[in-house]
């Protein structure tokens, strides 16, 4: 089952603009509320991967958690223009804790 999917980039305008040149589907959003709606909308469409800036992700954890155990979309945090918040690394740590029961790395 190799359907074709698209890749979405969700974030503030300045952070995501460059991805447009690469041919990814870009969704510039201005605020968290907007991002939330967009995320839920594109989750229903044919997007296999959604890159989300950490700045937005910090405020929509519950929305992201909803798709954590789904096969699509994979929501991947990327640092936005303002720099990395360390959220992506923290998430790795969290999933280790979830699996092992303690942070062993």
């Amino acid at each position, binding site marked *: 089952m190799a359907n074709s999917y698209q*890749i979405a980039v969700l974030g503030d305008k300045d952070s995501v603009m*460059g991805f447009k040149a690469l041919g990814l589907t870009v969704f510039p959003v201005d605020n968290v509320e907007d991002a939330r709606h967009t995320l839920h909308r594109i989750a229903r469409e044919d997007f296999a*991967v959604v890159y989300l800036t950490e700045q937005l992700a910090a405020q929509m954890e519950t929305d992201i958690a909803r798709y954590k155990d789904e096969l699509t979309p994979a929501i991947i945090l990327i640092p936005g*223009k303002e720099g990395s918040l360390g959220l992506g690394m923290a998430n790795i740590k969290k999933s*280790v804790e979830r699996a092992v029961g303690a942070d062993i*790395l």
Partner: protein
Amino acid sequence: MANTVVNPTRMELTRLKGKLKTAQRGHKLLKDKRDELMKQFLDTVRELRALRSQVEQDLMRAHSSFTVASALMSAQAMEQALMYPKQSVELTMTFQNIMSVNVPVYHYQTRTDDTGDIFPYGFAATSGELDAAVSALGEVFQNMLKLAETEKAAQLMAEEIEKTRRRVNALEYVVIPNTQENIRYITMKLDENDRSTTTRLMKVKDMLLAEALEERRAADDAAIRAFGGDPGDAAQI
């Protein structure tokens, strides 16, 4: 498990013994699954951490090139330059099965193969920094896709490990001990029944013997009396 009622019957005992055997087998299998998944998961996570820090670094570099570019160009000009992408990416997804966890594997297809030909704008109206920024982003993109793949795999595996761990623990600490307890209870109850049957039979036998003895004695007495003797003498003989 004293809180649920089990029928102390042989049929129930056989059923429980079968259940215990299945539970123990399942427990062993699930434990193996958990251990192997854990091994794979830790490998994935190690890879993921390295990949993520790499991608974050590269992305920050690309972002800073963009910042420089946007300082040199007006916002409108930049937006205009990037508005209509030349490149487009199509993603196909296949699945890889790691210990019954389906993890996605992405393959992507770009419209133009040449990585030098991804700039969607004429070079005349834009600054050179924008070119650098776009190509930096293009380079990091491959790793970003790999990152997505690995991270999703890690998330899915973490979920599966959690589930498996719960199952193993439920079997180990609840199902198996409870079944053993029930089996012990039924065995003891059945043994007790056996013993009570034996004692009852012994008691009945005693009663029957006493009765027979009594009858015999009465018959003897009657015989002695018939011959004109004293039954009291017979007891002394």
